[in-house]
């Protein structure tokens, strides 16, 4: 009994809360993978070397949804990270509410030349003269194609300026059933229901999903151009049979990418982030790949969505100066080059991009860079309710593909729902 009592008392006595040492700790967070963290660690160590008494703690959350939860609650509860990775599509939410610091006044003091960035990429994180985050890299949406499959079908490689007709002709020629079981063993292409993969298709088809000011969907999502794009895309797995049945969930199963790695899928839309996964296949298994643009409808201009992320500083960081310095350091030319070499994304600075393209050994960077002039910030970069809009877009594909409803009825219905969402204060 006595021992128990003494134990309790001791425990209480020792419960007196400990204190940290006197080092200034900068906390950063992102949704980056362990591999990416390792890349940044090189730059971070150098930052720490130049700032004695400062330690940088990198505390990533790999799941993006949970990441947002964590960043929002930590900022709102007054315990913000000093810098955090801001996704282009979260800019309106964070910027409109004044949650992130305007970095423009500090840029010159931390040695950041804002004109060194691609203007279209910087624009995603800017509002007028205000810059709310320093971009660390970006990617346009492109089509990867398997050169061997094209060669085997005696097809010329896709031109950067190709149209839907070229795309469909190639996809048909590339789809082959070699085993004779009625199911193709080689697919021309694949359809991904996630909106970010087909947003560029809608633009390059001459349509859009929202009015230019982002307040209405009716008249845009259900316009003849957008309808015909959706019809064309949903026909790929059904009417034309050139793509496997798409995965019915928001999460990816990786089936399409696996087919692509295995050389059984000829054309796949994705971003630069696929390169680190592709590289071993290209180097080890001699997968020969090319990169080309999203096909456009005849008579319309190519426009491709540009996805970017950038380091932002919460307004309430206790270490404003150090935080801005760190954000600048991680997006400086050196750090961008370090990142580019790992292949995850294009550097956000043209000069770095050129230097990197010069040492490119996979032969894809020139074609990636060629997409930049056609880049356009996705809707997520401009409207605050984008997450809700994006969630509704699954219904467009699903209702047409799974329930086989007519395209126009679906788009009109979803557009009406989007109007309500966008009209909400």
């Amino acid at each position: 009994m006595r021992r128990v009592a003494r134990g309790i008392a001791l425990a209480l006595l020792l419960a007196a809360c400990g204190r940290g040492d006197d080092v200034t700790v900068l906390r950063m967070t992102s949704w980056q993978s362990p591999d990416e963290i390792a890349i940044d660690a090189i730059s971070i160590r150098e930052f720490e070397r130049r700032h004695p008494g400062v330690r940088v703690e990198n505390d990533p959350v790999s799941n993006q949804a949970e990441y947002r939860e964590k960043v929002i609650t930590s900022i709102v509860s007054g315990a913000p990270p000093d810098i955090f990775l801001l996704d282009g599509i979260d800019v309106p939410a964070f910027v409109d509410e004044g949650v992130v610091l305007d970095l423009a006044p500090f840029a010159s003091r931390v040695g950041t030349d804002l004109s060194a960035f691609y203007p279209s990429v910087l624009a995603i994180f800017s509002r007028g003269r205000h810059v709310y985050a320093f971009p660390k890299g970006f990617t346009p949406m492109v089509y990867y194609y398997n050169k061997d499959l094209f060669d085997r079908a005696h097809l010329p490689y896709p031109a950067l300026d190709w149209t839907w007709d070229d795309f469909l002709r190639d996809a048909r020629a590339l789809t082959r059933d070699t085993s004779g079981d009625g199911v193709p063993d080689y697919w021309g292409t694949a359809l991904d229901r996630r909106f970010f993969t087909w947003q560029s298709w809608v633009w390059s088809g001459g349509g859009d999903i929202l009015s230019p000011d982002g307040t209405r969907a009716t008249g845009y999502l259900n316009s003849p151009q957008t309808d015909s794009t959706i019809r064309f895309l949903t026909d790929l797995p059904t009417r034309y049979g050139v793509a496997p049945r798409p995965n019915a969930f928001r999460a990816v199963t990786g089936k399409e990418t696996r087919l692509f790695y295995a050389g059984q899928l000829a054309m796949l839309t994705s971003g630069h982030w696929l390169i680190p996964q592709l590289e071993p296949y290209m180097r080890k298994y001699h997968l020969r790949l090319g990169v080309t643009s999203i096909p456009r409808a005849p008579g319309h201009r190519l426009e491709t969505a540009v996805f970017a992320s950038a380091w932002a500083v919460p307004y309430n960081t206790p270490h404003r100066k150090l935080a801005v310095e760190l954000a600048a350091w991680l997006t400086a030319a050196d750090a961008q080059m370090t990142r580019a070499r790992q292949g995850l994304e294009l550097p956000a600075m043209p000069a770095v991009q050129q230097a990197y393209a010069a040492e490119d050994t996979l032969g894809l960077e020139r074609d990636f860079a060629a997409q930049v002039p056609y880049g356009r910030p996705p809707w997520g970069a401009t409207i605050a309710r984008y997450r809700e809009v994006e969630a509704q877009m699954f219904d467009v594909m699903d209702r047409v593909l799974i329930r086989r409803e007519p395209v126009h009825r679906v788009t009109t219905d979803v557009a009406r729902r989007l109007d309500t969402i966008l009209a909400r204060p």
Partner: protein
Amino acid sequence: MTTRRATIALVIALVLAAAGWALCAARTLASAEYARASRVAAGAAARIADLSRRTGRAPLDPAVDREALAAARTPDTLAIVRDGVARTADGRAVRASIDRARLLTEDRALVLGSGARRVVTAPVKDADDWNIVGAVAVVVRPFAALTSVMLVAVATALLALVLALVGVRQLARRPARGARGVLVAAMGVLAAGTTVLVMLQGAGLAHAAAGLDLAHESRLLGASTLAFPSLGWSALLEWIVTLLAAAAVLGIAWLASARRRPAEVRETVAAWGFLAPSLAHLLVFSVGPLLFAFIISFHRWDLLQRAKPFIGLGNYREMAHDPLFWTSMRNTALYALNVPVTMALALGAALILDQPLRGIRIIRTVVFLPYVVSYVAIAIVWQWIFNADYGLLDYLLRLAHLPPVDWLGNPATALIALMIVSAWVQLGYQMVIFLAGLQGIPQSLYEAARLDGAGAWQRFRHITLPLLRPVSVYVFITGVIWSFQVFTLVYVMTEGGPVHATDVIVYRIYQSAWEFRRMGYASAMSWALFAVLFVLTLLQWRLLSRKVDYA
């Protein structure tokens, strides 16, 4: 152990515990005071920066400082640090040794000086908030946190302590109760001490929050409306303290209302001592959030937006017209249909595994295992089993020359697929409950029935089933409640798809709150779910309180 020795042990423990609590309390008060002082200092520094921006004068211009310090409206001694000397607005020097170099390089609140001459400083920066040019110093007042609310808190805790001691004395007269009694008394003391600590912590936090001028901060940020937490910490904590004090008063009233028998007092004290931890937990982590969600549900509440306007029943109205809400409610209700099926299977399994066979425990464990496995792991494995291209289930179907089914990709089968997983998980748990129920049925009834010539089916129909009724009701209702809260399977396996076929209410709440940042709407839906679960629980109470007839 004799009671005397136990009492000595308890007194020693108490003294040690009191020392620990006193230390921790002092530390809490001090750290709260430092937090508060640093916030007051930061507020004043922000005001100086704001004023200098608006007036175009330097941040350390005496006129700017005077105006900013006057506007702070705090009883604290505020001083401006220039060139290593801290002076108040009227020019008085504050006695504190200030490390100038440190002040100008560290961009954060600092505690400078030592002993009674301690100050907390916040850096004052130049017009564009970059270089540190000076600081605001706040003289620390260690006992400023002792407010009247706190005195009530301490009084309440002392009362609890006295009650516990009364309990000890009563126990001392009854040596027979010995060690157990001491333990009970110790629990009471522990509860009292913890109460003091929690209250001190609360008061300290409230105190620290008081140094934060929310309205001013939001103005500095250019926002026109109310600042972040509209229900502030201090208000919440004062509520908690008040409630606890009220509970103490009730306790005194109960003691005073009649001359209680010592045993009664002792039992009550012991009972509340035992109840206190779980009660506090329940209040803080269940009742509190529930009420908070209720408040939120009447607001348009975006975590990132400073303005959280009251919109009355707006969220509830929207809910009534939201087709996705009704779809998810319907899906949830359909999903709950897995319960009777699972129950039938679980009862079957229990009947089979109720035999005294060799290795039966291993089989029981195997059946129970899924229940204790991580849901995410289960979901991922079943995702693979259900896969239309290489899944195990379709492989078996193909072997049996049956057409393959795209279990998760087809709106007609996706929910059923989830129900299958759910049944697989719940089977073991329900089986264990049924096993316990079966073992509680008196064997004499079966023997009597056998003598009367009842067959196996008749024995099951007329003895087992009726006597299992309370267990069945329990399993059914908890199963349904559990089904209404399904989330992880949906989150990992289908994300509500395809075409909302597996869109269940908790997933909808999650998506609204965290993906769409609509806390108000999510709270309204949570309350709808709460209403359903509440009705189900009431039903369970009613059904369970009926007696089973053994006649």
